[in-house]
């Protein structure tokens, strides 16, 4: 019983982190039809920026809750700086082209970001532990959890609900849904489709960077962190169904719990359980769990 609870809590914590990253990925795919390989690179940029920003804040005597603020500022800065360069400067020239071709374009961006990150931040690891100590420890059952990790669950729920309600309840969200359904008709109705694309991509970048920023206190921030995250978040959105927000949530939970189950029960399977789940889901649901059937090209 205790073990089941442990597996569940660990799995949900991991899933929350995954969901924040995958939410951006699925949003960008939903609006722009881009499966963004560079998402992992943006995640790494977020982690580095957060490490530097938190360091700068504490260096100026702004510690405690300011470090949390610093992480959000870092993610926002990455989004504001990087979005126009990648979306306006590159990706918009490929809209409407084959999805796999765009995947390769973003793969090129991913390769470039890997080295650009190294050129900006160097190859030495960064450590930021301050934010993680902030919330203390919480006892659940007989086990202690770091409060920061549990707060990730809340953050993920807030992010998911904000995007979900934002799309359905606000004017700009409804306009975005119109652009997803029929970009050309939306444009003839006077919607500035380019602006929607820019905003959606920007939100995707922000979520990737936020995922990285929130992870920074948990790991040593060093080259190579982007490689592992990109494929795992791909697995999440593919399992859930590309472009679906509930799908990303369910996908993240499945992957998170499957992984923590493997960690405790079959440690040999830890590195490939995620891909195994992905294969099994794709075999039975070729387009993921939350995907309507689409007509073939004639």
């Amino acid at each position, binding site marked *: 019983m205790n073990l089941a609870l442990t597996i569940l809590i660990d799995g949900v914590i991991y899933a929350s982190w995954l969901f924040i990253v995958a939410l951006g990925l699925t949003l960008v795919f939903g609006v722009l039809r881009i499966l963004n390989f560079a998402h992992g690179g943006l995640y790494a940029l977020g982690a580095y920026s957060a490490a530097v920003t938190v360091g700068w804040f504490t260096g100026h005597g702004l510690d405690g809750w300011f470090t949390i603020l610093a992480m959000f500022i870092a993610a926002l800065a990455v989004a504001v700086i990087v979005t126009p360069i990648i979306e306006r400067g590159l990706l918009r020239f490929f809209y409407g082209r084959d999805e796999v071709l765009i995947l390769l374009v973003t793969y*090129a*961006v991913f390769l470039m970001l890997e080295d650009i990150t190294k050129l900006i931040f160097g190859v030495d690891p960064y450590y930021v532990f301050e934010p993680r100590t902030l919330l203390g420890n919480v006892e659940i059952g007989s086990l202690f959890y770091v409060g920061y990790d549990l707060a990730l669950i809340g953050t993920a729920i807030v992010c998911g609900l904000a995007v979900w309600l934002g799309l359905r309840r606000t004017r700009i969200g409804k306009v975005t849904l119109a652009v997803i359904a029929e970009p050309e008709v939306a444009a003839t109705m006077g919607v500035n489709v380019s602006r929607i694309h820019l905003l959606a991509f920007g939100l995707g970048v922000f979520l990737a960077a936020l995922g990285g920023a929130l992870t920074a206190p948990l790991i040593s921030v060093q080259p190579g962190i982007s490689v592992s995250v990109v494929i795992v978040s791909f697995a999440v959105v*593919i399992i859930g169904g*590309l472009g679906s927000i509930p799908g990303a949530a369910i996908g993240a939970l499945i992957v998170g719990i499957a992984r923590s189950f493997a960690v405790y029960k079959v440690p040999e399977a830890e590195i490939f359980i995620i*891909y195994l789940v992905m*294969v099994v889901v*794709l075999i039975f649901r070729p387009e993921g769990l939350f995907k309507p059937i689409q007509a073939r090209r*004639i």
Partner: protein
Amino acid sequence: MNNTLKVVVIGAIAALALMALGFAMPRWLLFTATKAVAFGIVALGIVTLMRGGLVSFGQGMYYCVGAYASGQLAARYGVTDAFILLIVGGLGSGLIAAVVAPLVARYRGIFFAMLTMALSMVLYGVLAKINAIGGSDGFNLPKPTFAGFAPQDGASDIALYAVAVATASLCAVLCRLYYDSRPGLIALASRENELRVEYLGASVFAVTARNFIIAGVLAGLGGTINAMALGHVDPFFSYWTTSGEFVFIAILGGYASAIAVFGAALITELVRSFSGSYFPDSWQLLLGIFLLAVIVFLPLGFGSLWARRRVTPPPADEEIRS
């Protein structure tokens, strides 16, 4: 028939010329060239799939299967003959591809890419945990022999290079003949429009499965050559970044030509080995810029420079969607 003869003659001349060039190469270049030829063979498999409109992000799996099958035969049972190892590697990976083919042949686009990648990552994870074959460290292979000969040092490198070039030429010739044959042209047609191909009575499923098995055999051959060249095999052969490299080379070469991938592989390997020593922190940046430039300026790859007559790009916006 005329075309067949032409392709075979061109292939033979190219193979002999490249082998002769091998004697003039310094040793480091010989090693790089052997590796590039092996990568080219794997990428040729992706090119074959691309002609049917699919890109596999998991060819590392078959590359790895070929390398492990032949590598185990060499390391465990002492079979070091390069030709036997190539046959075993190619057949082994072809067999696995034949098992997987009916499963993946229903998938298209991103889902095909992701499913093949997921499968290769499962293999990576499994191999990394089997300690009997070295776990995540992999294992070493003895030096290959060639039909009874066991050349020393430099001569061995040249012999392996010659075998790689001969294998690659054979593969390129057979692929060219396949591309120009009826089933090969059906694959090209299904790239443009699957449903119409099916209405005309051909099976896109069969075409895709066949291409996938061919790509599997090619990847196994490439994996075997690289296992012999490196003298070492590890689960990273099946990691997704390895597969990404093959896709990279295939995109650079393009699907118009069966020869261009080898040029693309050599350029990629040279860029990597030079920038690896001169700009260790920016070779991925260079590769990324390179890939973007090719996608933008040569969307059909290097091959389209001389094979323009064979393949004309489809007009961008004339797709009809139901």
